[in-house]
């Protein structure tokens, strides 16, 4: 005897599934709706931070470069955090190109290499750079920190040709040939690795860094000690820099819209507060921090 379909449990399961998914879907809908709000500059809600000291440091590091200076872009960002700093990186590249810098891109992580290749493609497509001034692709260097140390001696691939690789070879062929290093962080090999491995070997080389927010606590001490010349490591600093450089006029160079970020933060805070209250309510006679060590 053929069994009859049982719509009730299936429908019930679907309803239960949708009920479980509802909070996440509502969050997506809220953030999606908030994305239609006017962008920076058209509203009182601004992402750019009022403290411009970090932005000024980055700008002056670039402005102090001599004409035609060689600048190494160490691009080792991470797929998961690059969207936060993408606009800032593009603004910095525009700023460098506007100051006549000759850029060389190198990566020490595979993820960074993929992003560097995509950015080089974008620059060739969007920036309208002449063939002679096109950034040099110095490729991927294996070996992580050992690769960084090797880069101090030799950073140009054997087969690389063009005015920028030639200029690097004339300057010694290593990282020391550059006037500035722009470190785009996000992966395991961050600006900290550059400070630890390259700075002791090339102490006079100025290093500036762009990093996602989660690296800020790690990198801020290097800025205060002077080991980094400039650091943009929060969304607000990045947005302020994009605004000052005036690079956010194209859709691909605009920083994230402020309203979805604000709403997302409020939702995250609400979730954390709800979890904390639930934890406190479930704990009778709060006993404080539980020591796990013997």
């Amino acid at each position: 005897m053929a069994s009859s379909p049982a719509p009730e449990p299936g429908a019930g399961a679907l309803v239960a599934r949708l009920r479980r998914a509802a909070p996440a879907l509502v969050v997506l809908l809220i953030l999606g709706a908030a994305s239609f709000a006017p962008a920076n500059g058209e509203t009182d809600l601004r992402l750019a931070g009022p403290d411009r000291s970090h932005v000024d440091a980055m700008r002056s590091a670039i402005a102090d470069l001599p004409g035609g200076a060689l600048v190494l872009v160490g691009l080792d960002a991470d797929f998961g955090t690059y969207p936060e700093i993408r606009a800032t990186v593009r603004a910095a590249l525009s700023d460098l190109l506007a100051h006549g810098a000759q850029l060389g891109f190198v990566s020490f992580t595979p993820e960074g290499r993929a992003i560097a290749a995509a950015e080089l493609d974008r620059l060739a497509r969007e920036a309208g750079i002449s063939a002679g001034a096109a950034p040099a692709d110095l490729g991927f260097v294996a070996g992580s920190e050992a690769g960084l140390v090797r880069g101090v001696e030799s950073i140009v691939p054997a087969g690389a040709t063009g005015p920028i690789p030639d200029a690097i070879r004339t300057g010694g062929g290593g990282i020391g040939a550059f006037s500035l290093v722009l470190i785009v962080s996000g992966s395991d090999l961050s600006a900290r690795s550059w400070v630890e491995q390259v700075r002791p070997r090339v102490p006079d080389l100025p290093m500036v860094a762009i990093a996602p927010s989660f690296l800020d606590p790690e990198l801020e001490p290097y800025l205060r000690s002077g080991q980094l010349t400039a650091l943009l490591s929060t969304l607000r600093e990045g947005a302020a820099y994009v605004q000052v450089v005036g690079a956010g006029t194209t859709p691909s160079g605009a920083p994230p819209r402020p309203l979805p970020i604000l709403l997302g933060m409020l939702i995250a805070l609400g979730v954390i507060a709800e979890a904390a209250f639930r934890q406190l309510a479930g704990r009778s006679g709060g006993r404080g921090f539980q020591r796990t060590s013997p």
Partner: protein
Amino acid sequence: MNGFAGGDLAGTIATWVAALVTIGVWSYLVGLRRPFVLLQYLLAGLATGYLALLAVSDVLIPRLITPLVTSPRDHLLLFVALALAALLVAASWLPRRVTSPATGILVAGIAAFAIGGAVVGTILPQVGSALPAASVGASDVPGVLLSLGITILVLIGFLHGAPRAALTASAASIGRWLLLGGIGAWLGFLVVSRLALLVDRIGFLLGDWLTVLR
């Protein structure tokens, strides 16, 4: 808009694939595990394939094979590198005492660079920078003392297993709370980074894919 895909056919296809994959990953939110798992496999496979391609095209051929073929006498050390690499590749089939030198050199090299860099590049300069200078202003003194106090309390919090008096135990407890506070602040930074990613993905779907957002 992320600006990675151009306006040509290849760019359009890339945008569609990226959009469909994003939606496929988000389908996990409504309990669809299969597309999510498949896309995880796809990501892992692509990452592995990309890494292998990168290793061959950017490392093995230009830095090992080509120098060995074109001018082997100038690159004698590369023969040693080749032998060590071969030992690592064949590690599953060779006795441990044969492969352990290659593994040892690899681990020791990584540790040497990491420890040497941490000492020379971080610990010494940061200790020097953290020491209160003779020229420290009166307004900086509370900050310096606060930093010192927090550092000492957190370090005491790591005193595991040692016999402790009541005062030390209290200091250790405060140190652990301060440590938790620091980790919480770091988590807050991480949330901002991930939130930017989520907002960017929504912007990509609405702007690059559906083109309803400008």
